[in-house]
């Protein structure tokens, strides 16, 4: 036991210990962003912040979608495809009268949820490994995206799009408000629900969760449904940013892979059981800020992937320090 310095301090220490990942990611992001705005020729202007926020929020939403299956020790390789497919759908249906725009947004969200539900069914009922199940369904969603929009184009209600990608009072980017709202309205209640905690329990030890009577099937299903929901929100935001839709398989693939990177940088374990959406959001912004930093330092854009890879490798290495404490070598392979 360490020295006791009052119950408050003790609580704070345990709180810090269990939130180390998100705190590190947030600190990393703030440091990088501070360097970015001081080096940027325009400084801390509304425009600079808004552009950074829109780019970051896109990846953050997809990465939050990825986080929830990862917490259950699963993986969702279809988040990028759902993102692209809902983008194509939104570029068709989110237009017309305000009522039609509203219905269109609702339809996009429902389709995202349906995609997630299909993933969940395949994983829970079909008992397929998530990685292969979502690889297959992801290809299907990509196919549907191509069918919806064989060539890039489409449109979205401009007032709606400008509002979503604009800034509140030219200071706070609205995409950040959307992100915070999604966290407060969806993530926080989920984190504090029985099924949300069941997701952590399953990722931590599925056997022990079963022995404890945790509702495993329902919790896994919900995890994939929420992934579909967040991916659809990202698809909507993308449509607002580009004013169009495109069934771009490369974009989907790159977002899927970046989402996994953001999850890891944000302190969520790929083995499941620990981490969360808040860390992931900062992880996503860290990844996006690396690109921005390379830009303001005028570094050859061709070496950007290399730098991204180095940062990712360093962040992942931080997570493996626990292995130094292992007493039984067989435990290394658990």
């Amino acid at each position, binding site marked *: 036991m360490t020295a006791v310095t009052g119950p408050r301090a003790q609580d704070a220490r345990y709180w810090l210990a269990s939130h180390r990942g998100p705190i590190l990611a947030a600190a990393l992001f703030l440091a990088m962003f501070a360097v970015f705005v001081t080096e940027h020729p325009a400084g801390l202007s509304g425009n600079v912040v808004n552009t950074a926020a829109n780019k970051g929020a896109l990846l953050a939403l997809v990465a939050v979608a990825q986080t929830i299956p990862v917490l259950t020790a699963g993986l969702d390789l279809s988040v990028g495809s759902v993102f692209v497919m809902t983008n194509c759908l939104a570029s068709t249906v989110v237009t017309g009268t305000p009522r039609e725009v509203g219905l269109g947004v609702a339809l996009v969200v429902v389709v995202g949820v349906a995609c997630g539900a299909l993933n969940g069914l395949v994983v829970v009922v079909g008992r397929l490994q998530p990685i292969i199940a979502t690889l297959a369904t992801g290809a299907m969603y990509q196919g549907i995206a191509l069918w919806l929009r064989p060539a890039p184009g489409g449109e979205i209600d401009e007032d709606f799009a400008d509002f979503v990608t604009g800034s509140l009072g030219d200071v706070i980017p609205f995409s950040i408000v959307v992100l915070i709202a999604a966290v407060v309205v969806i993530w926080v209640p989920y984190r504090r629900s029985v099924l949300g905690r069941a997701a952590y329990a399953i990722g931590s030890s599925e056997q*022990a969760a079963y022995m404890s009577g945790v509702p495993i099937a329902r919790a896994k299903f919900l995890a994939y449904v929420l992934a579909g929901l967040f991916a659809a929100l990202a698809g909507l935001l993308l449509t607002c940013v580009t004013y169009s839709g495109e069934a771009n398989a490369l974009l989907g693939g790159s977002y899927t892979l970046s989402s996994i990177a953001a999850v890891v940088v944000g302190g969520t374990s790929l083995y499941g059981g620990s981490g969360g959406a808040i860390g992931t959001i900062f992880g996503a912004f860290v990844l996006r800020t690396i690109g921005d930093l390379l830009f303001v330092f005028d570094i050859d854009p061709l070496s950007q992937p290399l730098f991204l890879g180095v940062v990712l490798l360093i962040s992942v290495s931080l997570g493996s320090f626990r292995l130094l404490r292992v007493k*039984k070598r067989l435990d290394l392979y658990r």
Partner: protein
Amino acid sequence: MTPLLRMEGISKHYGGVRALEGARLACARGRIHAVLGENGAGKSTLIKVLAGVVQPDAGTIELAGEPIALPDPAAASRAGIVSVFQELSLLPDLSVADNIGIVDPPRMWHRTWGPIDRRAQRRRAEAALARVGAGDIHPLAQVRDLPLSRRQMVEIAKALARDPKLLLLDEATSALTAADVASVFRVLRQLRDDGLAIVFISHRMQEIAELADDCSVYRNGCHVASFPAGSKTSGEIIEMMIGREHESVFPPRPGRASSERPALAVKNLSWAGRLRNIDLEIRPGEVVGLGGLDGQGQRDLLLALFGALTGVTGSVAVHGVPVTLSSPQRTRLPGGGIALIPEDRKTEGLMLPMSVRENLSFAAIDQFSRFGWIDRRAEEAAIASMIRLLGIRADGIDGPVAALSGGNQQKVVIGKWLMTRPQIILLNDPTRGIDVGTKQELYRLLRELADGRAALLFYSTDYDELIGCCDRVLILYDGAIVNVLEGDALTEHNIVASAHNLTAAGAAGAPP
């Protein structure tokens, strides 16, 4: 008065292995019922049936006079049956408070739809921990960071927080310190006086004498007898637990001179509080047994000698040369020559989807490879001779190991390590789950290996095997050697008595 719980005619088979056959158990409110039996008598299976983890093939379960089905642990939990298992059911990444409240946490606003009320959950966790006398555990600590004895206290607190009608404890006190055991027992007696029915399995006879009101003895999956505690002596209980004749299936043991230099000499070996001051010597040609109850450190001792543990203290000498056992790769070198036949052949012994050829040659691959290239002809010759030696029945060496029977799989595991021509062979319960015929072949093989001047250290949960195969048996209890049995003292009665650390029950031979 009808008992709270009545189980009748419970049977469970795993393949051809009988775990339970027409077993019964009845226990009443306000009583503590001890379930006794040897390793493999079916006690744990019986408890698992009650906990909804194992589905019986036949039999009925009644709770308070009503028949009840227990298809999964959640159903058992709803029926008020709560269990504390040997293998912990805690979630390592969650906090202590989350673990204690995992099933039915307190909610805000609405009983089923509201979010988890973390403050109320924390208060409940603190109360549950204080109740079992573990107020030192912080409710926000992650279970992963707690030592084993504290985790077990959390497990017990978690069970009590669910407000059970029937509490099942399967070796729930095995990792606890004496002070913790005392406070847990105090709580259990309190619960009994409050009218709870408690069923518990313990291998410590002192605990049973101290706590139990009733006892039921099981043997080979069958119920033997039930009686009030204190009406039988420990000697009588041990006879009930053994009580069977066994035919001789073991090859004869040649007598040996013990003046030779030991092939393996271990002095004062300790590890992480789980192994304590182990001394042992094995001479070439000797088979030394490791006995005792499951989980008293036998497995850890074999892993330590194989180099799979870090932080082992003490000294090990192979043929008089001090060695450092740092990893399985090092220990399998022809000079070191230590092989471990693992217990769980499916995860530690074999790569199931790979071929018999690949599995057999993995450990010895240096012997027929040059600069990283495998000499297939040398490999084939070595494999063919091994398959002949062990009598492995396989269609061909390129089929997957998964297609072989359990006994033949185990032979492949053994063959894999024999290919390295080890001088010291560690065996971790190698006959578990294989048929009698293959067992006999393995016994003969062990003796042949010993005759070929190998030194064997043989852990078995089957006491017959220890008696039949070994020149000497070391009994472990709580990580230390408590007794050494050889010659006429090597009897089942003495093994069972020493395994329960009852030296007064007539065990001969002195600790080393």
